[in-house]
């Protein structure tokens, strides 16, 4: 029988030790906790905030522990009920410049955290929370861009004295221009080629002195990805307002954004804040002499004022608002401070410097969806979703001076009006409207039940399999049982290190791995039995069994791994969770079932010369 080198034992011990240490954090149940941090990222939580929190929490006789972490204050407690009480207590007593979020605080001992050992992340189906998938309407962003370009072109044509009779953005987002003469058309064509790079060349002309400008593929891609990036940023800010610890906001595919909010219980509120598919537009108020075709009348939001005419040209959009904060002016009257980004600032400056004394309107554009019923060919009513826009004025204030990147809106009636306006201004920073295309909400009680069901089924499954193989293979069964148990430990350790998310289908994957990982040992042991029957010496039979079974095990596992990887790349949600644990389980089981059992068997039988029989 082949000797098993010392280094192999050491390697196995090393891997096992590592597995035990890194899976250890999962044994410490997290504390329900409340996390308090400042809204503004420039302000970090300090002793002052911690003392404040401590004092407030002390009002109630609850088990708590207040800790000051890097950038937040953490209040740990013992039950989920107390967690909610503490959250309400803090929201009622703290000033509104803090974010209060529910959290599950890990109780991992310091020494484990120092070596980077952390528990697995639990999926929403295990800890409760909401998952949203939102579709970004990038076509609107493209159309808006073309609208802006058209405004610009009108001004340029006037400056260049190019006379046109028609200038519109068509439904397919291309710009159609019609000129008074062939000369004007040619001038325009040259001018556009020289000054605009975003259109498909050559520009398409027609016999009516018309010109068609369609955006190039590269430009469309750019606009789309800018729109999605902008929306991601906005969603992240909105999620922060909701007060969620460990939220996920990320792009999925070309036009979609995934938002996951663990621990959120009020899904309607979450949806309201996230789903505010609103954009902002800053317009100058129209004057008496503004032609009818260049102005539109809009109602005032909530009927706070009379409807007013605004000029159709947009100074800038909500995506250029960096922040908006409610505060009070020197006389203690409510106001809203607005900060624009650099480009927005210079646009604002250009638009307002010649218009002091006139009024600046802010238009709030909300995308709403409603269900309408259409009749199909057979006269059956089929529901369809229709989006429509509601445009309302949220502010119409006199321009006192040329405005720049920062300015303020005063003359508001009450603090509640100023905070609402600030919220609307902040909320407006979506580059393109979004719709919810998928929602999955799991209540906390179902999450807890799922964990319990998962753990129970794993325990029973493991117990049944261990009982069977111990009975069937005796000493070798001990080796296989140890291998199986260590396989779970290793699997959990790898999941924890990769900070992979454990879901209910993921647990199912682990349970399935338990059943299937035995296969490798069954293959080896059957081979050993066969070899014994053929009359080989026990040690030789062990050797031959391991050698001959190896390739079979390899092939069988590689094919299963291929399936798991395909699942991983094509699957979403539940499928992915299952595929992750299955893939990791296959890899770890190869190690434990082949190397692990071999080491154990060698330890027991390897040193004995002239072995008569083995227990298999």
């Amino acid at each position, binding site marked *: 029988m*082949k000797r098993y080198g010392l280094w192999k034992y050491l390697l196995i011990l090393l891997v096992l030790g590592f597995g035990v240490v890194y899976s250890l954090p999962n044994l410490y149940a997290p504390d329900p906790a409340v996390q308090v941090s400042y809204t503004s990222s420039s302000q970090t939580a300090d002793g002052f905030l911690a003392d404040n929190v401590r004092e407030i929490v002390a009002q109630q006789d609850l088990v708590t522990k207040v800790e000051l972490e890097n950038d937040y204050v953490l209040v740990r407690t013992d039950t989920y009920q107390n967690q909610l009480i503490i959250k309400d207590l803090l929201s009622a007593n703290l000033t509104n410049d803090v974010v209060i979020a529910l959290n599950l605080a890990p109780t991992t001992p310091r020494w484990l955290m120092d070596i980077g050992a952390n528990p697995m992340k639990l999926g929403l189906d295990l800890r409760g929370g909401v998952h949203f998938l939102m*579709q970004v309407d990038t076509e609107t962003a493209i159309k808006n861009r073309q609208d802006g370009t058209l405004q610009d072109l009108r001004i340029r044509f006037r400056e260049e004295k190019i006379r046109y009779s028609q200038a519109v953005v068509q439904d397919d987002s291309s710009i159609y221009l019609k000129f008074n003469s062939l000369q004007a058309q040619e001038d325009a064509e040259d001018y556009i080629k020289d000054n605009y790079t975003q259109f498909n060349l050559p520009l398409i002309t027609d016999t009516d002195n018309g010109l068609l400008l369609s955006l190039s593929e590269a430009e469309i891609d750019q606009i789309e990805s800018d729109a999605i990036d902008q929306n991601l940023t906005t969603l992240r800010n909105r999620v922060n307002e909701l007060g969620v610890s460990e939220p996920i906001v990320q792009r999925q595919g070309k036009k979609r954004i995934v938002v996951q909010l663990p621990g959120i219980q009020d899904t*309607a509120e979450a*949806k309201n804040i996230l789903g505010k598919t609103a954009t902002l537009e800053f317009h100058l108020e129209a004057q008496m002499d503004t032609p009818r075709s260049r102005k539109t009348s809009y109602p005032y939001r909530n009927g706070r004022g009379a409807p007013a005419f605004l000029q159709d040209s947009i100074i800038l959009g909500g995506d250029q608002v960096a922040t908006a904060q409610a505060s009070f002016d020197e006389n203690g009257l409510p106001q809203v401070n607005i900060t624009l980004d650099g480009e927005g600032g210079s646009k604002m400056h250009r638009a307002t410097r010649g218009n002091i004394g006139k009024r600046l309107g802010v238009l709030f554009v909300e995308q709403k*969806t409603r269900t309408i019923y259409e009749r199909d060919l057979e006269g059956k009513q089929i*529901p*369809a979703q229709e989006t429509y826009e509601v445009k309302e004025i949220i502010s119409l204030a006199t321009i006192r001076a040329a405005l720049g990147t920062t300015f303020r809106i005063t003359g508001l009636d009450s603090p509640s009006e100023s905070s609402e306006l600030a919220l609307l201004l902040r909320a407006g920073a979506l580059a393109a409207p979004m719709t*919810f*295309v*998928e*929602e*999955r*909400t*799991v209540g906390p009680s*179902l999450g807890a039940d*799922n964990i319990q*069901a*998962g753990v129970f*089924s794993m325990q029973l*499954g*493991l117990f*049944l*399999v261990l009982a*069977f*193989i111990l009975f*069937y293979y005796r000493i070798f069964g001990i080796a296989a049982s140890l291998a199986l148990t260590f396989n779970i430990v290793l699997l959990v350790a790898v999941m924890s290190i990769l900070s992979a998310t454990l879901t*209910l*289908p993921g647990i*199912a994957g682990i*349970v*399935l791995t*338990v*059943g*299937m990982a*035995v*296969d490798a040992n*069954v*293959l080896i042991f*059957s081979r050993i039995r066969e070899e014994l029957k053929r009359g080989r010496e026990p040690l030789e039979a062990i050797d031959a069994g*391991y*050698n*001959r079974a*190896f*390739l*079979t095990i390899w*092939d069988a596992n590689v*094919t*299963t791994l*291929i*399936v798991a990887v*395909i*699942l991983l790349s*094509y*699957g*979403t949600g*539940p*499928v992915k969770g299952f595929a992750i644990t*299955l893939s990791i389980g296959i890899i770890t089981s190869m190690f434990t079932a*082949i*190397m692990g059992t071999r080491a154990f068997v060698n330890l027991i039988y390897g040193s004995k010369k002239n072995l008569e029989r083995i227990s298999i």
Partner: protein
Amino acid sequence: MTFNIDFLAWRKIAIIFSSIFLVISIGSLIFKELNYGLDFTGGTLVELSYPEAADISEIRGTLIEGGFEGAQVANFGSSQEVLIKLPGTISDTLGSEIVSLLSSTNLNQEIDLRRIEYVGPQIGSELRDDGGTAMLIALAFMMLYIAFRFQSMFAGAAVIALIHDVVIVVGIFSMIEIEFDLTVLAALLAVIGYSLNDTIVVSDRIRENLRSLETDSTSEIINTSLNQTLGRTLITSLTTLLVLFSLYFLGGELIKNFALALIFGVIVGTYSSIYIAANALVMMGLTKDHLKVEEPENADNNPLP
């Protein structure tokens, strides 16, 4: 365990049996179709938990009064749990509306929200397409891998067995009208993995015996190989079934159909690796000569890791 069963004597019966089953499955898929779950149809689903046994007809009445005409209401797991489904709906707010409607008409009972799911129509069809694609890609990769590791006849036989298994499991789901959702799809792909596992173990032994056994009769070699691997096949199926049954009974409602699909899959997969894959090899006319051109190395001589 030693077996000496003349598997190939049962060949014709197995073929007839499988054919009948396949025809029934395909027929059921055509005429009854699959009972697609929300993941694939799109729509809204709400699961609620009542403190006492819930009155289903009362809930249904409330929902109809509230304007949710097509709502399907049923118990889910226990008499306190209620599952409300609105398949094919395209508004993302119906779930919250149902929850607030039921909580406001049921003030004396505290209703616990277990989950809300909304799947938009385009997502549903995408998930279906992706699922189908994943399945086909998996089959293609399997074929390539086996053709590379073994020989093209083995690849053909394995894929015939896989298609046999998938069609029958899906057929059973259609016949007994069990909901087919994303987790079941995942289970189905796992069935492919599992069934292939079995087929490979058998094929591996057939290859080995083709090279080492004296006899020239392929049928005899295949029969010997099946008998040699039968013990292992049964034990592995048994341990896998043990964990699957524990998942089925203890894993909760969300895992039940997943476990069920795998239970059917393991049973059908075990049967198919014995009768279908091996049969296909015999029928394709595999002989020793097909392996002569292969690499000369013998499986025995491969080193340990």
